């Protein structure tokens, strides 16, 4: 996979290091609950893949599971601290495309909370708080202590220390409206956006996708694979070639609102040159 940066004209708000800002944002979103977590007690060879995860208000990585509903905790059913590896994988936003977008990896120590008082003291939020409220004390809640968190995405591997958990604890502006706006954009228009980046008309970054010979996994010329407040990530396919294309969104100078991303996306679409006939790239 090759990497190409197309940087003119860069939105002012992301000029410092836009890719690093995006990677940090994706890391925060994944820690805060996006993606699917799998815990592996690697010394015991046991895996727990039914848990949900998130970050408490105090910046602790928290997991929750409901044992004895569909499964038992197996080797995870212990009062002792457990050495675990946590892998959180995030796949394409467009479910028609089987594409792994990014993953987070860490080694840490899992300790289950002993009672509801201890759970309450964590300051749960988001899906963790909802689960505990809906199910009650049958939910097993645990805290994973870690010192190093690694993001693996289309820009490579980025390492963070545990301080990023505190960042992830702060709620980011919702991107639900932007997500809907991008997902409802026609595949041909998404292809035009991706081509504009590939042709240096729009700023952004591109990565070549390693495609197997069987390309039946691809349904459309372009798919939306992620929507972030910093940028939209697309997958573009022509013939037997594929690219991941990241298109930064200009951020408003004032505090961003839920609609700002949608406005930025519409402006970006309006700035596209007239629809071209797309041909396989050389």
């Amino acid at each position: 996979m090759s990497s190409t940066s197309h940087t003119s004209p860069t939105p002012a708000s992301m000029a410092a290091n836009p890719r690093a800002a995006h990677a940090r944002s994706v890391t925060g979103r994944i820690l805060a609950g996006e993606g699917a977590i799998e815990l592996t007690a690697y010394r015991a060879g046991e895996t727990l893949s039914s848990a949900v995860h998130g970050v408490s208000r105090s910046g602790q990585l928290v997991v929750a599971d409901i044992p004895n509903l569909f499964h038992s905790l197996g080797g995870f059913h212990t009062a002792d601290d457990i050495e675990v590896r946590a892998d959180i994988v995030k796949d394409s936003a467009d479910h028609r495309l089987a594409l792994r977008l990014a993953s987070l990896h860490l080694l840490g120590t899992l300790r289950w909370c002993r009672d509801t008082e201890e759970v309450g003291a964590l300051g749960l939020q988001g899906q963790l708080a909802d689960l505990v409220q809906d199910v009650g004390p049958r939910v097993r809640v645990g805290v994973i202590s870690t010192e190093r968190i690694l993001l693996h995405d289309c820009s490579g591997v980025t390492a963070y220390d545990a301080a990023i958990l505190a960042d992830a604890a702060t709620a980011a502006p919702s991107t639900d409206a932007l997500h809907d706006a991008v997902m409802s954009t026609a595949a041909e228009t998404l292809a035009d956006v991706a081509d504009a980046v590939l042709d240096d008309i729009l700023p952004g970054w591109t990565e070549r996708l390693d495609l197997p010979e069987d390309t039946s996994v691809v349904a459309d010329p372009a798919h939306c694979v992620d929507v972030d407040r910093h940028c939209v990530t697309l997958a573009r396919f022509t013939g037997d070639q594929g690219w991941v294309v990241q298109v930064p969104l200009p951020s408003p100078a004032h505090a961003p609102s839920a609609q700002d991303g949608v406005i930025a996306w519409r402006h970006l679409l309006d700035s596209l040159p007239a629809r071209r006939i797309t041909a396989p790239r050389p």
Partner: protein
Amino acid sequence: MTTAVRSCAATSCSFNNNADCNALAITIAGAESQASCGTFVQLDARRPVTSDAGRVGACHRLECSYNSDLMCTAEGIEVTDTATCATYTVA
């Protein structure tokens, strides 16, 4: 240093060519105690740490003694017919 895939016995993989790996670079992942090849499964947007063909692009088994920030430091690995890494060792 990047790690070569010395051999791969997963002949049903579309990247396999006479026990050699033709993928640009592979990712070692896998569920449970199996350190298996994740490139076997689906499209992957995650960039490998190397662009050399037939190399371990990244390994998510952080607990493996050969792992350094998702990079494999082994001289070479062998992938079995079930696409698992036979070189994986917990420190």
